[in-house]
């Protein structure tokens, strides 16, 4: 292994027909790190994860996952990686315990029964062990899926939008669990659309239309964007927003509840435009750009090379 990098790949590329779905993406993830992988829908996140866990073969690029070559040692990688798919992909007509038992058999776990019991215990699913997986609510399904992809004690966990459609309480519990596991040395690569989740990651990468746009810690990503943001509050914000859009230096105007966030890369121009566009009853303050401002800005400037 190279230092303590659990995942170390470069130039990963995947094409489907003429479409380049993942274009020359590097990724380095340290052991025990929670790495957030963000980007708009259809940006190639899932395809990238599938290449990391050996489901797809990259058209170009190379690297290692847990020290195994991703091109030639997919079989070894699969033994030490847990992959949780975007959609619930266990058997709805098997019970929770049967699902876990099936997965444990696939990995050939020694002491299978204990492993299943332990995993049920750890996730608090013991009383529900004989319930059919199909009858579980979204939150419970997600816990089951996590339990199933953790049962073989993987060193790397790949989670593809694990919290989509899960309520806030369950999401928080889920993240506490992820942090606990990471503290024990598990490396987690997770895709998400939620900003609060992105902020809970140690480091982030943002891709759009297959291209890597930025990466680093939350602060680094915000710094690198070089964005200045003003927050405006008051009445008639909708009309104000329309007025501000398209002015010099104003790159984006986004409504956040009762406030507007106006961002741009040229601070002087932006300030002049904001002040000129406001009415006396409006309050405006310069605020720290938030991750969300940065991502929306990135998303809008990214060239959509699929759309005409």
């Amino acid at each position, binding site marked *: 292994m190279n230092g303590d990098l659990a995942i170390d790949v470069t130039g990963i590329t995947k094409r489907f027909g003429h479409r380049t779905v993942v274009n020359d993406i590097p990724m380095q993830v340290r052991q025990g790190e929670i790495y957030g992988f963000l980007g708009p829908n259809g940006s190639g996140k899932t395809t990238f994860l*599938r290449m990391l*866990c*050996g*489901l*797809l*073969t990259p058209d170009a690029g190379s690297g290692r996952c847990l020290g195994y070559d991703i091109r030639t040692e997919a*079989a070894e990688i*699969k*033994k030490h*990686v847990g*992959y949780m*798919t975007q*959609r*619930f*992909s*266990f*058997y*709805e007509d098997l019970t929770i315990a049967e699902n876990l038992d099936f*997965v444990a058999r*696939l*990995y*050939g776990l020694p002491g299978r029964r204990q492993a299943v019991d332990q995993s049920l215990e750890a996730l608090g699913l013991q009383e529900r062990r004989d319930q059919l997986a199909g009858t579980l609510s979204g939150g419970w399904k997600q816990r089951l899926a996590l339990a199933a992809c953790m049962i073989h004690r993987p060193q790397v966990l790949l989670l593809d939008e694990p919290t989509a459609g899960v309520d806030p309480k369950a999401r928080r519990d889920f993240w506490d669990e992820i942090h606990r596991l990471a503290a024990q040395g598990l490396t987690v690569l997770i895709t998400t659309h939620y900003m609060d989740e992105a902020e809970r990651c140690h480091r982030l990468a943002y891709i759009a239309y297959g291209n890597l746009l930025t990466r680093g810690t939350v602060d680094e990503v915000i710094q690198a964007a070089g964005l200045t943001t003003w927050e405006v509050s008051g009445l008639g914000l909708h009309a104000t927003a329309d007025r501000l859009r398209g002015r010099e230096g104003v790159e984006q105007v986004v409504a956040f509840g009762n406030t507007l966030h106006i961002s741009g890369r040229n601070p002087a121009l932006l300030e002049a435009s904001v002040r000129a566009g406001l009415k006396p009853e409006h309050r405006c303050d310069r605020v720290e750009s938030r991750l969300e401002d940065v991502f929306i800005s990135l998303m809008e400037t990214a060239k959509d090379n699929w759309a005409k």
Partner: protein
Amino acid sequence: MSCRAFSFRRFWAVVVKEFIQMRRDRLTFGMMVGIPLMQLMIFGYAINADPKHLPTAVLAADNSPFSRSLVWALRHSDYFNIVRVAESETEIHDLLQRGEVQFVVHVPVDFEHRLLRGERPSVLLEADATDPMATGYALSALNSLIEHVFDRDLKGPLASLKARAGPAELRTHRHYNPENNTQYNIVPGLMGVVLTMTMIIITALAITRERERGTMENLLSTPARPFEVMIGKIIPYILVGYIQVFLILLAARFLFRVPMVGSLPLLLAVMLLFIAANLSVGITFSTVARNQLQAVQMAFFFFLPSILLSGFMFPFRGMPDWAQAIGEVLPLTHFLRIVRGILLKGNGVADLAPELWPLGLFVLVVLTIGIKRYRQTLD
């Protein structure tokens, strides 16, 4: 207004949406057009309950003008197509055993001699009666043929022989199914039909379901290899297939009293090849079908000609050449000959060889396509 019980606009919205979806689902649309067309072709052109031009061998031990007349008349009747002139009794037996001919017309040595003496000698017609439907019409046609076939030869002083009930007598010998029992033919054949249905539909469904529900992706992210997944999914259904066969064999033996002349272990062994043929079709379909509905439709698309063109419901030899050519490709056609051959005729491996190699070839070709496509769907 909006609370009307029936709104044409709302109803029309649903109709339009259905048409859009129908157009998107090309396969379903193709099946909706294809299946009626196929039925039309099969029922309209291929099926014939009154099969003609049945392959016939002649063993004329008596080389007289009379037997030549008989052969000539047979040649010119619609029902018999003389494909062989046999030399010996054993040859006749082999031809029938392997199903190469449907009938053998056997003219005895002293036929002319006895006919001229007015002894009403008999012509022996040996029939492969495993499928009574295939032979019935031909037998009655031959009966009336024999009445007048010698009219031209019996002239002058011999004309008096015509006056009697008939100068010669036809004796028929129905081999393998002397009582003309249709069940003897249908019940063993049913094994093939049931296996075709179960094996194709179930395998196509089982694999498509795994993909449709997204569980396949999960399976393949574990160390499980595609081959292990495939075999693991199929084996339980093979077992189910054998249970079905076992039930049908029990019913055949004790309810329908179907004779079982041949070797049951041989039947069960050969059945594995037939099951493999159907599984390979199921696997190939599952790589094409995008959802379970399509998988069922495709299975049905294969099942229909299997039932109609294999000789299960209608005599194989009654069909035109193009339909027979399609039938020869279908695994069920060969399996029917095998199962009837073993149970009713007591065929051994050597007799079955002409049916075994097409099955083997079918498995090889279809499985290759299936595995190739299966690989593609992963990447």
